[in-house]
């Protein structure tokens, strides 16, 4: 089990504000995978840009918090690339959620705990 918090939610649902409430400053958040920041933002954008490969998983696992936009609701797009991207985001989040100790879904700035695993020794 990785000590990782996965924060998901729609556009402008309050993901970043929630991460700030956990005590992280803006300088500790980055949308670049290779950055030393403990918080990774906009995983969906990284996946869209094709910035992740098979070696990226270990880098993801070393993050403390990962934020990703929920993109799978609504109508399945006609465009094949859009479909592939939504599929990739959904599968990646599902896999991260399996490994994460905590999964949070944001709605209107309010966190709902989808998964909470007690850490060892707690």
């Amino acid at each position, binding site marked *: 089990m990785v000590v990782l918090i996965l924060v998901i939610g729609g*556009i*402008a*649902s309050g993901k970043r504000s929630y991460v700030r409430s956990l005590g992280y400053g803006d300088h500790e958040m980055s949308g670049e995978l290779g950055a030393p920041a403990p918080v990774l933002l906009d995983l*969906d954008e990284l996946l869209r840009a094709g910035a992740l490969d098979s070696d990226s998983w270990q880098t993801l696992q070393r993050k403390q918090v990962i934020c990703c*936009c929920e*993109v799978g609701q609504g109508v399945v797009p006609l465009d094949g690339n*859009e479909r592939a991207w939504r599929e990739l985001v959904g599968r990646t989040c599902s896999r991260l959620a399996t490994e994460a100790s905590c999964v949070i879904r944001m*709605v*209107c700035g*309010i966190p709902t705990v989808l998964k909470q695993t007690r850490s060892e020794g707690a």
Partner: protein
Amino acid sequence: MNVLVTGGSASGKSLYAEQLACHLSPTRIYLATMSPEGHEAQRRIARHRAQRADGGFATIECNGTLPRCRFDGVVLLDDLGNLVAQALFAQDGAMADPSSVLDRLDREVAGLFGHADHVVVVGNEVGAEGRSLYAGTRTWVELMGSLACKTAARADAVVEVTAGIPCLLKGALPC
């Protein structure tokens, strides 16, 4: 009390919000936000009017701005999506400055919360459909999300409705 009711399209959020409003006070004001253009809009307006017919709501039309007067009883604002769209897009399709629209609407919602006995605001969950949106739609989604977060922070209770079933996200409800 001030309540935000959110949910996806046709999730039953308007019906739930109306039932909640009816429970809160016998004096009811409905702030209508939908632009009555096109057959589909007319049908939806007719359906919502029929839904409210027994509720005894007095209707006030909003055109991208909220009234600033004092209200006795309960005010039902349905919904943020149309309010933001009307505030953001002019008739000729030009777009207003999003951050100033957000500031203004946030102030107006705060004012409404302070000037009525009870307020029920209906929001829309539309931000989880990906980023392949037109630029204008994208701005609208972002603006509505931000306004919903601010409104939720001010509200005493927040409810998400799915398949007609209310799920409490914040606070407590009277019914």
